[in-house]
Each structure stands twice: as structure tokens, then as C-alpha cells.
């Protein structure tokens, strides 16, 4: 069963084709015009000043050879750029977009339309800007990306409302409504179609009114209002009959048949399908004959009239071959949706057409339709193979585009996830710190509380000694009070530093480089990481050795970032020595041995000054006596997400983050030296 939106899409496409044919008399797309213009162009029989309009018309009318048309568009762009003719430059990009679209190159087509929009904006040409949006929307609509298509249609409609160009607006509204039908947003579609209809009525543009009525009818049919549907489609059919436009009538009739079939009114459905068939046969519309006969076949089958069903199935098969060829044309037309007719031409056409008599119009229309049909037949015959390969290529192209979009989406998802993971790695290391922080804060608080209580006692005693007149005792007490005050102050600052460090650690961005006493920084993080681990694992134990070179002084670094590196490296070091320790004690089954005979987990952090002309940098070495890193994974350890820890215990981002912080953040180096069974050394080199 054909879906109604699909029918409507075809109608919409045909509407555009019809529009082009109808406006032929002035300067609509016409291969004959292109052929004669190309003679002028090739013989260089033109004035220099007319080259730009000539190229524009040539490109516009060249519908047979899209590659050639694309060349014209590129030439138009180059020449108008040289002569700084912005109007033609814009037209050039717009035409390039339409030609690329016809060639199935949707991405570059989008790029061209975007450029044309930019130029239109600069030139404050609202009509051209709106047409650009519309064209982009058409591409997305054909590619079934309806949310993006909807966005651009809204842009187009919004922009065109501001321009004085009601016909462009009506066309955008019609196509936007058509796109909405596909995603079954009927209320907005109805608004668009109604507005388009009102515009066409105001401009007295019969076919436009006919299509709008038909579209409105389809919306009613979809929303279950069959009475209104029939009324509107009935009017549409009579208007389109006046205009000898039978193709869409056939489709409307089929969509009616669909609606009745859905309602279970098979007899009515058959009636509409039969009407469609007879009309299609009358005007030799092969695709419509095939559609209607297929529809009738399935309807009769439902009615258990197998004889009739078979009869229409045979008819369907008979027309299927020619249908395949028509589909080729259809595909090309599909890529041709949009507004090739510039609005100015549209305006002139309407004015001109109003002046013509009805009779002239009819004759002209029939002649042109016949001419167009002739061209199509010739095209089918001469380009059959070419077109079939074009179908395949278009399908492949489309598939490639879909795959590309999928890959791009996956990539952006991955990038997003990676960013989240980096943030969560930072938070995880904050979690590792929290326990250490709790411990580190309780200790200074212990001193602050107790020394301040002591001072209160001491002050009372001092008051007592004053009364006793014992100056020596008073002096001793005051000295104690002073000492205690200093201790309170010192531990208060310690707590402050811890909280600040914690806040800085949780910050996602790097912060500012500042002169930092890196020995003090490392000492602080050493304590935090050690106590953090101790808090989580009671059995954890390691000897820490420090060898700080005091001559390093202050280095300009990102303190919290560098702290994060040290934290990562130390956490890893503690982890490996602990692993080795657990392994050893498993084998020996010994209790605690304090004499140091067996394995003693040891982590060393050492700093050295590297003297140089510009003040000198520093080398920081973190050594553990764990099991070392096997050679086969040594080149992987700085890769993101690489971890040897059990699932859930490591993010695999610690070392890669550290590597980035040292190399990218500080212009330094992070190297590793390891020996199996003996341990590992991480060497950080920071420039001065």
C-alpha cells in the first residue's frame, strides 16, 4: 500500500516541474534556450558585459547535462569574483548548489547554498536568503532528516515573510507542509497549506490553489475528516482538470483509496482506485496505471475476487518495466526539488500569464507539456543504461551519506563520552583524595581545638599568677600561650590549604600558572594520596622516602594539574607495591615482620634541580619497587583507557592525563624506566 505522504511528495515534485513548464514562455528552465545560449557562449559571440548574465542563464537552463551546468556555475563564480559582481557570485553559488544536488553531491551542495545565503545576507536580499534556506531544507527532506529540514523550512518561511516575495513564501510553505506530512505533524502542515493557498488565491494562481487544496484534503484524510477531505480533493481535481494536470489527480485518487481501505470500506476504495486507473490510462500515465492497477489487485484480493485481482496484477506487471524507467526520471526530479525558478522570473511569469487569454494559455501549456514529454522519452531511450547506473550510483551515494552521517554521529558521541570520562576520572581521583582529606583535616582540627582550649586554661592560670605577683611563672605561661597561638595559626593554615587544594582539584579547567614551591606541593599530595589509600584499604602499607632538592625553589607551573600528575603517579606506585606485597605474603604466609627481612614496599619521590641558562628546571623521579612493567604493554601505558587494574578500579586515564599535563601543559617530558621484578621509575622533566 502506498502511503499518503509519499503520494504527496510526488505531487509536490510534480508541482515544481509543472511550475517550470507553465512559466516556460518567459525564461524558465529550457534545454533549447541552453542549447542556443551555449552556441553564443562557445563562439564567444557576446559582449564582455553580458558574459555574467549569459553564464547564469546558460547554467540555469542546462538541465540535460548537469556536469556541464556545474562547469558553467563554477565559471560564473570565478568570473563574478574577478569582477566583484556580488549579485552574480551569489547566483553562481545558488546554481552550483542546485546542480550539485542534481548530481547527488549533497554535501558540497549544502556548502554552496550556505555560501549563497551568506552572500544574500551581505546583500540584504531576503528572497535569495530564504530560497537558500528552502533549498537546504529540500535536501534534508529528501535525505529523510526531517528535524533539520523542518528547522531550515522555518528559517526560509521566517525570512521570506520579511521579503515582499509571496510566491517564494508560498512555495516554501507548500514544501515545508509536505515535509511535515512525512512526520505526521498535521496541524502545522495544515496551517502551512492554508497560508500557501491564501497566497495563491491572492495572486490568482490556479495550479497553486489546486495543489494547496489537494494537500489540505490529504491532511483531512489523514486526520479522519473524510467529508472535508473529499470536498477539498474534489475541488483540487476540478481545478487541476482545468489545467490538464492529470498526474497528481491520479495520485490524489489513490490516496483516497488508501484512506477508505484503512477504514475497511473496500468497495469505496476500489471505486477511487478505478477512477485513478481510467484517468491514467486516458492520458498514458504509465506510473499511475501501474500504481492504480497494483492497488486494485490488492483490493480485489481483500474482497476475495481473485479473478479481478489477477487481471489487475497482470496489468501492473505489464507497466512495471516502463515504470522502472519513469522512476529514473523521478529520482532525478526528486533531486530537483527546490526553487530553480528565480522569484523575479516567477513574478514576471504570473504577470505575463495574466495577460494571456485562457485559450493561449491552454495551447501553450499543452504544447510545452508535449515538448517536455518528448524530451523525457528521448532521454529515456538514449540514456537508459546511463540512468540505470545513475540510480545505482545515487543509491550508493545515499548509502555512503547515511554511513558517513552514522560515523560522524558515533564520533561526536565518542568525543562527548571521552570528555565525560576525563571529567569522571578527575572526580574519581577527587574521591581517592576525599578520605585523605578527611584525615588531613581532622589532624589540624585536633590541634586547633585542643591548643585553643589549652590557651584558655593557661590564660586563667596567668591571671592567677598576676594576682600572686609571680612574674617568672607568668613569663613561662605567656611563652607557652604564644607557642600555642602559633601552632593554632599554623594548623589553621594547613586546613585552609587542604580545602583549597581540594577545590582546585575538582575544577575541570587548568587554572593559571603560578610560581610554586614544588617540593611543598609534592609533599602535600604525597600525604593526601597515602592517607587516601590507607583510609580505603586498612591493610595497605608502604615505606615512603623523600629526597627533595631545596635548591629548586619556585617553578612556574599549574599547581593543581601538577598535583594531579603526582597523585596519579603515586597512586599507581602505591598500588603496585601493595600488589607485590600481597603476592609475597600469600606465598610466605608470614605475619607482620618488622625486622625488614622480607619485601618492604617502598615508594620514593625525589626532586633535582636541572641547571640551565634561563634559571633551570627540575627533574622529579617517582620510584617504586614493584614488579615492573612488562615490555609488551610498556608502549601502551600512556594511551587513554589503558589499565591493568581490575574492571571498575581504574579509569585508564590517569597516565594519559598526566602525560598531557606534563607535555602539553608544561612543555616538559614524562618518561618511564622499568625493570621486571625490580620496579619502575617515572621521570618528569619540567623546563625552567
Amino acid at each position, binding site marked *: 500500500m502506498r502511503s499518503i505522504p509519499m503520494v504527496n511528495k510526488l505531487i509536490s515534485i510534480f508541482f515544481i516541474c509543472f511550475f517550470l513548464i507553465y512559466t516556460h514562455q518567459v525564461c524558465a528552465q529550457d534545454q533549447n534556450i541552453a542549447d542556443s545560449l551555449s552556441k553564443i557562449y562557445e563562439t564567444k559571440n557576446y559582449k564582455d558585459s553580458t558574459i555574467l548574465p549569459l553564464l547564469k542563464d546558460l547554467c540555469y537552463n542546462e538541465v540535460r547535462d548537469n556536469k556541464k551546468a556545474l562547469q558553467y556555475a563554477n565559471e560564473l563564480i570565478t568570473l563574478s569574483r574577478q569582477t566583484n559582481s556580488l549579485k552574480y557570485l551569489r547566483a553562481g553559488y545558488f546554481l552550483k548548489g542546485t546542480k550539485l544536488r542534481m548530481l547527488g553531491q549533497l554535501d558540497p551542495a549544502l556548502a554552496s547554498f550556505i555560501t549563497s545565503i551568506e552572500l544574500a545576507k551581505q546583500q540584504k536580499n531576503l528572497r535569495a536568503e530564504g530560497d537558500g534556506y528552502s533549498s537546504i531544507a529540500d535536501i534534508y527532506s529528501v535525505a529523510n532528516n526531517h528535524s533539520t529540514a523542518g528547522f531550515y523550512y522555518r528559517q526560509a518561511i521566517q525570512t521570506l515573510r520579511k521579503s515582499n516575495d509571496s510566491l517564494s513564501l508560498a512555495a516554501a510553505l507548500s514544501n515545508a507542509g509536505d515535509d511535515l506530512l512525512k512526520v505526521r505533524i498535521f496541524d502545522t502542515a495544515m496551517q502551512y497549506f492554508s497560508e500557501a493557498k491564501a497566497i495563491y488565491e491572492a495572486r490568482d494562481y490556479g495550479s497553486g490553489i489546486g495543489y494547496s487544496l489537494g494537500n489540505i484534503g490529504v491532511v483531512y484524510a489523514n486526520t479522519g475528516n473524510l467529508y472535508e477531505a473529499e470536498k477539498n480533493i474534489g475541488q483540487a481535481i476540478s481545478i487541476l482538470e482545468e489545467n490538464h494536470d492529470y498526474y497528481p489527480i491520479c495520485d490524489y485518487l489513490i490516496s483516497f483509496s488508501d484512506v477508505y481501505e484503512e477504514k475497511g470500506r473496500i468497495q469505496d476504495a476500489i471505486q477511487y482506485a478505478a477512477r485513478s486507473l481510467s484517468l491514467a490510462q486516458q492520458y498514458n500515465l504509465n506510473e499511475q496505471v501501474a500504481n492504480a492497477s497494483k492497488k486494485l489487485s490488492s483490493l480485489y484480493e481483500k474482497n476475495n475476487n481473485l479473478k479481478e485481482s489477477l487481471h489487475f496484477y497482470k496489468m501492473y506487471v505489464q507497466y512495471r518495466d516502463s515504470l522502472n524507467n519513469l522512476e529514473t526520471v523521478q529520482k532525478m526530479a526528486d533531486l530537483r526539488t527546490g526553487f530553480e525558478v528565480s522569484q523575479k522570473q516567477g513574478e514576471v511569469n504570473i504577470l505575463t500569464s495574466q495577460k494571456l487569454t485562457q485559450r493561449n494559455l491552454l495551447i501553450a501549456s499543452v504544447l510545452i507539456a508535449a515538448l517536455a514529454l518528448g524530451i523525457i522519452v528521448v532521454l529515456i531511450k538514449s540514456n537508459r543504461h546511463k540512468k540505470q547506473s545513475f540510480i545505482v550510483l545515487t543509491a550508493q551515494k545515499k548509502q555512503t551519506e547515511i554511513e558517513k552521517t552514522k560515523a560522524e554521529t558515533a564520533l561526536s558521541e565518542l568525543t562527548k563520552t571521552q570528555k565525560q570520562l576525563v571529567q569522571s576520572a578527575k572526580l574519581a581521583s577527587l574521591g581517592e583524595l576525599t578520605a585523605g582529606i578527611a*584525615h588531613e583535616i581532622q589532624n589540624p582540627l585536633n590541634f586547633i581545638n*585542643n591548643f585553643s*582550649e589549652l590557651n584558655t586554661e593557661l590564660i586563667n592560670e596567668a591571671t592567677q599568677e598576676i594576682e600572686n605577683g609571680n612574674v617568672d611563672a607568668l613569663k613561662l605561661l605567656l611563652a607557652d600561650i604564644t607557642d600555642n597561638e602559633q601552632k593554632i595559626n599554623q594548623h589553621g593554615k594547613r586546613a585552609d590549604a587542604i580545602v583549597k587544594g581540594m577545590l582546585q582539584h575538582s575544577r575541570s579547567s587548568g587554572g593559571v600558572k603560578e610560581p610554586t614551591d614544588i617540593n611543598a606541593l609534592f609533599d602535600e599530595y604525597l600525604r593526601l594520596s597515602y592517607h587516601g589509600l590507607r583510609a580505603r584499604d*586498612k591493610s595497605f602499607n608502604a615505606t615512603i622516602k623523600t629526597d627533595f632538592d631545596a635548591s629548586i625553589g619556585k617553578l612556574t607551573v599549574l599547581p593543581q594539574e601538577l598535583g594531579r600528575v603526582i597523585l596519579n603517579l603515586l597512586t599507581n606506585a602505591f598500588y603496585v607495591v601493595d600488589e607485590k606485597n600481597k603476592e609475597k605474603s600469600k606465598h610466605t604466609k608470614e605475619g*607482620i615482620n618488622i625486622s625488614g627481612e622480607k619485601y618492604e614496599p617502598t615508594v620514593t619521590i625525589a626532586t633535582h634541580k636541572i641547571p640551565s641558562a634561563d634559571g633551570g628546571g627540575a627533574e622529579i623521579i617517582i620510584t617504586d619497587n614493584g614488579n615492573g612493567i612488562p615490555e609488551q604493554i610498556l608502549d601502551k601505558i600512556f594511551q587513554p583507557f589503558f589499565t591493568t587494574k581490575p574492571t571498575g578500579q581504574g579509569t585508564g586515564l590517569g597516565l594519559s592525563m598526566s602525560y598531557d599535563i606534563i607535555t602539553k601543559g608544561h612543555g616538559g617530558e614524562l618518561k618511564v624506566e622499568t625493570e621486571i621484578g625490580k620496579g619502575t621509575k617515572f621521570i618528569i622533566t619540567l623546563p625552567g
Partner: protein
Amino acid sequence: MKILVVDDEVDVKDLFLQRFRKEIKNEEMQFVFAYSGEEALTYMHEHEHEAVLILSDINMPGMSGLELLKHIKTKYEKPPPVVMMITAYGDDENYNEAMKLGADDFLTKPVDFNNLKEKLKTKL
């Protein structure tokens, strides 16, 4: 009566000396200090059965307070000294572990010295 205080925080010494200055002055109590579990064991080795009460922090670099506790309670001749644990982590896990290993009491930081004084007096 000698009390051995084990903590890696250096200022603990000043704190205890001041907090217990009256008791020290009256020679009710005597304090010695060790800054690690290892140091505490060494002291106890050298001054056997001198310290009758040990106050130990749990989180220290190297040997932890719990290991020290275990060592004292398993290796020392009866009666082993009274061991009270002091920690910044007042969590159940630490508490249960300390009790399992035979701790005589469990205190959390910040230390309430009035409370501690009373406890010391009853324990001794």
C-alpha cells in the same frame, strides 16, 4: 606510670605535655613519644614493660596503628600493656578491627582530653 604516645604528628607531643602538665608536674603520669609504629616497637623493646599504657594513632606511614596493636597484643608477655587507639577515622571498620585485635579503647580526633583523662585514670 608511663604512657607511650604514638603519632606521626609532631605537635602531638606538645599537646600532651601541656594537656597533662598538672599530672606530669604531680608525677602522676609520665609521657614518652614515638612518631611511628616502628619507633614505638623499638622503644618497647629497649624499655620492656616500662610503658603500661599505649595511645596510638591508626593512620601512620609505614606500620599502621592497627599493626602495632596486633603486634603488641600477640607478641608481648602477659599482661600486655593497655592500648588505646586514636584516629581521625571514626568508622565502624576501623573500630571493629581495633576491637578484634584487642584494643582497650577507641577514641576519635579531635581528642576530648577531659574524657581521655578520665579514661586513663580508670584504666590505670
